[in-house]
């Protein structure tokens, strides 16, 4: 690992800034560095790009569905894995942004790229709501298991509230909230295009858009986590008192990390609604709230790569189990969590990648 270094001072500031941020793609807070690692990343992206050529629309649509959840998982990875605050209620921001996307798009339609504006507003709403909850939690000195209790309470309160909005009086403009049955009828993400808008229904086009977003989000988070901001989050996780006694306003950092996690959960929520044109209160319920914790714990909460891969693997496995094993899928998820906690507390994927890396080094020697 190299110390943080500024590039040549004679370069233009914008170019220097870009170089500095690109240098943060690798660093102490993220696994993987060097040409071999990036070659694997490029190969993985190329494989994902060519996947639709070999698979049918249904399977590709399923893969797009898996991508939808990765943002919430990576956000929880930042909040829990890097900052040390276990949030049990990321689904509150997921659901809020999902409903917001529905309400906005039902009211303003999908012309002129309005669905993308709705997506942005929904993500912002998830982030702002998380900042608000984070402000009261962290400045109120809530920590440890109580963060989990408060966040779980928030998502369950939202679920309960939305479930009782069945009457016709529960509407925002043209959008009926529809209580327990949930909202439907909102348009999917729509790209304005000469000769006719492109509707991103579940399929190849949506798959590519979501793949691009996942890659950008992953690389962006790598840069952020290897920047001074990420270093401070890790310091807070390891020893909050020491971090504060080095001059860091730890509550501000915790709140910002929580806001980022909320915005990413909101992105998943809005994309989920756009993907299925459907959102229900159960998306904020207990089962929904527990699943992101399983994905992140099984993948590895302390590394964003492990979180991303773990999330994709566990969701794919969960879906297969749901098809073939019905409700037993949840029991398997629980067992997987217990196994991870007892045998590989750093996460199955994280541990596997670490061991493979060590083996690779030994073989090279």
């Amino acid at each position: 690992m190299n110390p943080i270094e500024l590039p040549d001072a004679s370069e233009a500031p914008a170019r220097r800034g870009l170089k500095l941020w690109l240098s943060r793609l690798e660093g102490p807070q993220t696994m993987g560095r060097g040409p071999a690692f990036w070659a694997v990343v490029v190969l993985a992206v190329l494989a994902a790009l060519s996947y639709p050529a070999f698979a049918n629309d249904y399977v590709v649509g399923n893969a797009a569905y898996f991508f939808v959840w990765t943002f919430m998982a990576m956000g929880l990875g930042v909040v829990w894995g890097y900052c040390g605050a276990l949030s049990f209620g990321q689904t509150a921001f997921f659901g809020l942004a999902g409903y917001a996307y529905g309400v906005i798009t039902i009211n303003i339609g999908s012309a002129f790229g309005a669905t993308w504006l709705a997506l942005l507003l929904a993500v912002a709403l998830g982030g702002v709501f998380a900042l608000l909850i984070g402000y009261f939690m962290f400045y109120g000195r809530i920590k440890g298991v109580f963060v989990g209790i408060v966040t779980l309470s928030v998502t369950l309160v939202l679920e309960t509230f939305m479930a009782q909005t069945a009457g016709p009086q529960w509407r925002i403009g043209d959008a009926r909230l529809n209580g327990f049955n949930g909202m439907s009828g909102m348009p999917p993400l729509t790209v304005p295009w000469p000769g006719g808008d492109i509707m991103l229904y579940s399929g190849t086009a949506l798959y590519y858009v979501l793949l691009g977003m996942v890659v950008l989000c992953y690389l962006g988070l790598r840069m952020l986590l290897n920047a001074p901001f990420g270093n401070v989050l890790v310091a807070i996780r390891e020893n909050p008192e020491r971090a504060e006694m080095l001059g860091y306003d730890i509550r501000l950092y915790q709140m910002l990390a929580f806001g980022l996690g909320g915005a990413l959960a909101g992105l998943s929520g809005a994309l989920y609604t756009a993907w299925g044109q459907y959102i229900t209160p159960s998306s904020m319920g207990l089962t929904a709230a527990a699943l992101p914790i399983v994905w992140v714990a099984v993948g590895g909460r302390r590394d964003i790569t492990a979180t991303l891969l773990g999330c994709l693997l566990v969701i794919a496995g969960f879906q297969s189990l749901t098809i073939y094993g019905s409700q037993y899928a949840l029991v398997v998820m629980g067992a997987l969590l217990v196994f991870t906690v007892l045998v590989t507390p750093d996460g199955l994927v994280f541990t596997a990648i670490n061991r493979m890396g060590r083996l690779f080094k030994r073989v090279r020697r």
Partner: protein
Amino acid sequence: MTRILDVAKLNKSFGGVTVARDIDFVLEAGAMHCLIGPNGAGKSSFFRLLLGEHAPDSGTIGFAGDDITALRSFQRIRKGISVKFQVPGIFKALSVRQNLEIAFQYHLHGASLGETVRRVLEFTNLTGEIHTPAGVLSHGQQQWLEIGMAVGVEPKLLLLDEPTAGMSPDETRKTGEMLHELNARGITILAVEHDMAFVQQIARSVTVLHMGAIFAEGDIDEITAHPGVQEIYLGAADE
């Protein structure tokens, strides 16, 4: 001499327990001073009041000419106070280099950050441990790492809570030498310490705390000979 620390009529109670009782305490810039006292005398509580971890019931804390009584901990640190805890306050899962970079990155960036890390590694004799996770260092090395983290950006005042707790005699001696070097660079040092031999190595002037109040202040030899101090802290001579 200018006053770096000026504490006036400081009081703090938790329920019926008084941990600070009308404390008036002045520290001149450039001093190296020790706080001693028996267990429960209020030494650590006094540190926590100085650091802003506890808010005083009454009284004021002045630092380098500013009233910092209402400031939060991180704001006090940014003004130039630094601290080394009794139990090493380091980031055990992170490497020695990461510990130091996190400690300095608020003030330093780029090449100056790297240069300061290199200088502190040399000062703390940890150059060979740069990639070692801090948690696997020896106890003495962990203490030195924390001292390095606390002094890399040259604070005005360094608070040390039992800096040699758990150290071997050799490590204790080396720590004393480090503190003299830091003090010679202009860093004012206030240390809580139990080891009287170490107190004599690093400071000529001491303050004795007893039941949250200042019991005695003065030269180390006078204090150790003070019958009242022997009674409350060192144990009566005839015991």
